[in-house]
Each structure stands twice: as C-alpha cells, then as structure tokens.
C-alpha cells in the first residue's frame, strides 16, 4: 500500500503523457470508424434482412465481425500438427466433435480469433438519411395547404410589448446608439426598449396517417409476413423523413378484418381465405372515425399474396376506389416468396385498374429480401411522380389571436 503512495509522490508535477492519452483507444476508434464506413457502404444489403430491425427502438443493430488486417498466411490444412504438454498418451483423443457436441459450438474453425462479433447500433434516422442519399430517393411531397397546425414565429421588434418579450441586447444597442447624440440622457428611456414580436405562421403539413393492411390468410407464410414487415418498416422510416408526426394504423384481414397494435400485427397469422374488401372497409371505417380524410395526408400500403377471392372483386374495387380518392398514395406490394406471378393476381389486377384510372397508386411484386429496396424505391419514386391530382383545398385563413 505504502509503496503505491511512494510512487505517486515521485510523479507529482506533470502527469505522464500515457496517463492522458490511450493510443489503443485511438486506434480502436479508427477501427470502429472503418467498420461503420464499410457497413454504411453495404447498408441496403445488410438491413434488407429482417433480423436487424429492433422492434420499437429507434436503432438498428447490425452484427459485424472485427476487421482483420490481412497477412500472407498458409492455407489451413485438413490436419494440422502442434505440440502440447500434459498427461496424454499417444492415441488419446483430446477433443472429438462427434462425441462432445457442445451447445452452440460449431466445430470447424472454432479456434479462429476472427469469431468475435460486435453488435453495432445505428440510429434509424441516420440510416434513412444515408439510404435516401445513397439510393437517390426523392423526398416525398406533402400535400400542401391543408394543415390544422399553425405556430407562433418570432418576427421583428416593436417598441411596445409584454415585459417577458423584452430583447435586452437589442434595447441596449438602441441605448448606445442614442447616447452617441449630443446631450442625450445616459439612462434607459422607454424609447430604447425593444420587444420581440410574434406572428402566427401556418406550418407546412406535419402530420400523416399510414394504414398498413396485411393479408394474414392461410396462404401467407411466415416469410411472406416478414417480407411485408421489413417493407413496412422502411416505408414508415421514409415517411417519417417528411412528416413530423406520423400515425400508423395496422389492419389485418382474412375473410374478416381487425385492427392491431404494432407488436401484435406482425405476429398475427390466420387461417382461411382472403376477402380484401373486409380489410378495405375496416380502413375506411377507421379513416372516417378518427381522421379527416379531406385534410390529412393519408397513405395506404397493402401487402398480400394476391389471392383474393374472385367473388370479392366488385366489392373490393368499389372500396378501393373510395379509399384511393382520399389518400395521397395507395400502394400494393405482392409478397409471394414461392412463385413470382408478377402481379397477375386478383388483387394485382384491382390495383392495375386503379392506377390506370389516374389515381395515385402503385404496385410491386416483392419476392426476396434483397428486393425490399427495390420496392421502397419504386413506391417513393412513383409517389413523387404523381401530379398533384387532387386540387389543394383553399387554405383556411390564418387565425390571429386577439
């Protein structure tokens, strides 16, 4: 104990440089940075896989291996000799994968150093920014105009106002200016005081509603639902870029429809047939009950394998047309991991009709996780191409407070 004290005494004065600075940490940070660069370069591929999405959190976790600084090495042979020490006789088997199947042990290559994995956490917002940049996705255009929200914005100064809005710096400047004149009073006068003024400004549309409708009938496999989930996840992120607040509504249907909370939504699996109109009617119902279809920015994305009941065609068509009239965009993504039918399905046809009738709608056949980005790009590019079909309702006059 006392020796430690002695040593510390010896070092009084300037601290040694190595106590101030860790080279190891510096080089580790550089390694970390390199990994992040590499991840960023391959981001679309890495996060296309559904596993990385961290439910509820605003981060995405990407497992990565530590970088290796490569050297020339000999090929790892089938059989390698080494020297050891201890009580062992020729013929002894010291490790046998066939015998001791340790849990989680993979056998081959288990002795490699490179096995260590890091879990890097990225902010979803950062990722979305990189992706939009990387894929040159257009920014969505919000429906301008119809906004319920307005806000006070600071604008200009006045000589009168509430005490709380006194701008001291500005007032002092006025005092200094005035004092420059000959014979002026050196004290503050009412003339010098400046008060910040506020004005009511209409905010651009900051609110949107996204309906996610998922077909959970018996023909939708787990993988199909996962594809839909991944797609929906990135759609939400894309829309969040544009709208300050986003409401999400989750509707699942088989031959009937239910609304779900987000965590439950993706766990749902049903049995039986597909009647898309039930889902669409449910969407309609929620839309009318909770939102104002004429004024809110509403999006609908529907994921299904496309096998809608043939007898439902007329009803579904009518419901869809009604919804499409009130939404900014209606998208259909056909998830069919089995065989790709390229939208030649009942539901596919419905949306094709909708699109050809001039509505803001689009469809995409999503068969693989690698293609999630294709789908996202397809919809976001399509959405911006749609001309402002619906004439923006006249903006309500800005309300002035008394």
């Amino acid at each position: 104990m006392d020796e430690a004290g002695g040593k510390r005494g010896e070092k009084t004065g300037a601290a040694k440089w190595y106590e101030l600075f860790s080279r190891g940490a510096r080089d580790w940070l550089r390694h970390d940075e390199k990994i992040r660069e590499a991840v960023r370069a391959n981001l679309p591929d890495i996060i296309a896989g559904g596993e990385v999405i961290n439910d509820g959190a605003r981060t995405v976790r990407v497992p990565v291996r530590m970088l290796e600084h490569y050297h020339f090495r000999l090929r790892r042979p089938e059989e390698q000799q080494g020297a050891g020490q201890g009580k062992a006789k020729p013929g002894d088997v010291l490790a046998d994968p066939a015998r001791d199947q340790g849990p989680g042990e993979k056998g081959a290559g288990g002795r490699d150093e490179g096995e260590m994995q890091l879990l890097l956490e990225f902010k979803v917002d950062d990722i979305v920014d990189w992706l939009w940049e990387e894929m040159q996705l257009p920014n969505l255009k919000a429906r301008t105009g119809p906004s319920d929200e307005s806000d006070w914005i600071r604008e200009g100064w006045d000589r009168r106002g509430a005490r709380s809005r006194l701008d001291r710096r500005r007032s002092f400047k006025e005092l200094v200016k005035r004092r420059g004149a000959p014979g002026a009073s050196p004290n503050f006068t009412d003339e010098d005081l400046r008060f910040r003024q506020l004005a009511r400004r209409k905010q651009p549309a900051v609110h949107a509603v996204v309906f996610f409708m998922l077909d959970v009938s018996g023909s939708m496999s787990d993988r199909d639902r996962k594809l839909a989930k991944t797609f929906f996840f990135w759609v939400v992120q894309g829309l969040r870029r544009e709208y300050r607040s986003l409401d999400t509504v989750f509707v699942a249907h088989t031959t009937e429809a239910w609304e779900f909370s987000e965590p439950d939504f993706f766990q749902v699996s049903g049995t039986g047939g597909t009647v898309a109109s039930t889902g669409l009617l449910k969407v309609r119902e929620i839309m009318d009950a909770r939102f104002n279809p004429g004024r809110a920015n509403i999006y609908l994305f529907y994921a299904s394998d496309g096998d809608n009941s043939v007898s439902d065609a007329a009803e579904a068509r009518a419901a869809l047309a009604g919804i499409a009239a009130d939404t900014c965009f209606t998208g259909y993504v056909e998830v069919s991991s089995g065989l790709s039918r390229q939208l030649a399905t009942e539901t596919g046809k419905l949306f094709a009709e909708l699109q050809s009738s001039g509505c803001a709608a689009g469809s995409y056949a999503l068969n693989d996780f690698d293609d999630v980005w294709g789908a996202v790009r397809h919809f976001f590019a399509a959405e911006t191409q749609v001309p402002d079909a619906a004439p923006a309702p006249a903006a309500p006059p800005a309300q002035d407070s008394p």
Partner: protein
Amino acid sequence: MSGSWQDYTRRIEELAAAQGLKFHPVDFEAVPDSFMMEIAVYGLPVRMPHWSFGVRYIYQLIQRHMGHSRLFEVVFPGNPGHAYLAESNGLAENILVTAHVLGHADFSRNNLLFKRCQEQVSERIVEHAANHARQISAAIETHGAQRVEAVLDAALALEQHIDVDVALRRPRYPEYAEDPKALVDDTFRKRFAALEPAAAAVAPEARRRAPVPPHPEKDLLWFLAHYAPELESWERDIFLAVREESFYFYPVFATQIMNEGWASYWHARLLREADFVPQQAYVDAIKCHSDVVRPVAAEQQVALSINPYHLGFVMWEKIVERDGLAAARGIMEQDDDFAFVRNHLTRELAEELDMFRYSARSDGQIKVLEQDLNALHEAVLAPKYNFGAPIVSAVKVRNDGTLELAHDSTVDGRGLDLERSRKVLDYVQRVWRRPIVLTTVNQAGSTLELTAP
C-alpha cells in the same frame, strides 16, 4: 514488509553482476496497467498509429477482463535498457521481475542474433520507434489519414517479410549485370587487347542492365521501398520505418524460448542467492515464479501449446546442471530457438515434461500422435519459421511494371490462404500502383496465379 522495490534494485544488480551476468544499465519505471497493456499491444512504448493495433487492443482488453493475462514487466533491450513494471505489482513481484529483467538484459547484450540486429537498428529502438510515430503523424497532417493508412496497410501487412541475413541498410542492386568478360584472366586480356585494340573497345557497349530483382528477393519491404515505380518519398519512409521495427522484433521473436527461459532461470537463481530479501517476500516471489513457469493452467490436464517460460526454464536448468554455467553461457550467446530446441530438447527431457505431438483435424478432432523427437522439435518450431510467415519473394518486374511475386511452397508444403492473400495484394497494389501477380499452389499442388487488380 518494508521498503519499496527500488531499494532492492541496486542489490539485485550487484548480485547479478557477481553471478556473471553482463548487461547494460537498465532504467526501471513503474507504469499503470493500462500502459503495460498498450506496450504489449504495440510491442514498443510508442509506435505508429494503425487500426489493426486497435483490434489487438480490444482482444487484450477482453483477455484482461476475463483475467487471462497479467503482465508483470516489459523490457526493451538497448543501452540503457528500458524496463516497465506494472504499478499493480507487489513488492515480491517486483523483486522477482527486477531479477527477470536483468536476465533479459544479459541475454540481449550477449546473444549474437540480438547483437547483430541491435548493431544495425541501433541501441535506441525505443526512441527510433517514437520518431517513426512522430514522422507518421506528420505525414498524416500533410497527406491525410486515408493515404497514410493505405501505405501502412501495405507495409504492416508485410512486416514479417524481411531478410535478416542481409544488412538493414543495404545498397540498391547493381545497375548493370556483371560483364562476364571481366572474369577472364587479366594478363590474357591485356595481351589480347594489345594485339586487337578494336576488340577490346567493344566491351563497354556490351554492358547489360541487370534484371530487377537479380535474384528472388525475400525482403519485400525493402524491395517495395526502393523499386516501387511511383512511390513517393514519404511513403518510402513509412516502409523503411516498419522494416526497421521488424529488424528489431525479429530476434525477440526468434529467441523467445531461450530468452524467456534464460530470464526465468536467472530470476529463480538470483532469488535463491539473495539473502537480503525478506522471508515473506521470498515466499511470495517463489509462488509467483511457479505461476509463471507452469506448463499447464491450474484447472486443466493438458495444454495444446507450449509455455515458452516453462520449456526454456527447464531446458536451461538441465543444461547448467549437466554442462556447467560456462557452457550454458556459450549456448546462450550462439543459438537461436531453432538450434536451442533441436540440440538441447532431448528425448528424456521431452518425456519428463510430458510433451506430446497432436494432430488437429479441421472438423475439430484432436488426437495425440506417436512419440517422435524430431517431429516434436519441428512441431514446437513450426510457428517460428521465417518470422512466422510463408516465404513470398519478389521474382520479377515485367516491362509494363507488373510485379511478380512467388510463394515458395516447397518449404512449407502447402499453398497460401487465397482469400487473405488477395487482400494483401490489394493493399500492396495501392502502393506499387501497377498490377501484381502472385504464384502459389492450390490444394492439389498445381500452380495458381492471383492477380491484383
């Protein structure tokens, strides 16, 4: 227990000198554990920055947190030598470590391989490395971190590819091939020239440019530094800095068993002789000694690797017991690990130490093999051949600047790991700036070419 370890340093030094150890003075310094760990990661107290050290640092950090490794001391040879002791060492540990360090200091001053490398690198490697680090920081300022990192990626990837049998500072290859006629007997040539002046005058024109390289070149760092077509001077400096540090590291690497064994032998012996050490400290130090030189971790029956401290320690004890200290000193001066293990790890000793050979299959099965002394020697030494790297030489520069590298698979009997080799070629290509071709063999033993880009 009273007093600090410094009080004992002088007396241990005197004792060591009286026992015949010949060493340069050593500066001892106690440093925090975190700094000890960095020295272990970088190999030198101050060294150039590179992200690969960051990876090693994290591994060390994890190891330390799991309690696997503990560093008592690190010593750098030189005149004076520098020894760093961990602040967390107790008095007994520090007494032991001081004696251990003096064993190292004796070894590095007298071992021929150490002496030869040290004469070339200088006895001030610690300062040199710090200078390199400063020089590289300056290069980062001037040329940007990215460009410097690209050069370091290449240079550090080739850090084992030096040729210690050739001088550190060596001249470039001769520009022209030697004139074969010059070898002809001089008297005859003079008389011939006198008879036929016209024929003699032809000779200078026959001078041919020597091919580059004139022979397969093992020292890739040197070769790239001097013959890369568009290397800038600051890039060459980085290559040469890495190379100089490699010349310093080589003897440390190639005499590890001997060196650690020698230091362990001497700390044990000096401690026995040191009657001035308090009883309790002596007991603690002996316990620490036996922890360091035990062959197999306490909880295990067998180890699949050799503890160099233990093997070296036992071998030196046997040699001193059998042939006397003078003979042991002779061996210490002349050998490296290859000679030491092959000549002095006898059958009896191997049996006494329970050493065995094993074969590890890629599916994870590990089986103990028949006893065979020569094969055991080679199994111990195999990781040490050629600085632990495959033998890759520069063999030719083609007219278009393409560099031909060749891996000599006749020595190690198998080809290169292709994935890694490709990555190394990518690093090197960014410095060579022309195509690179590497020949090696595939699994079946037939020739294979890797190219970059």
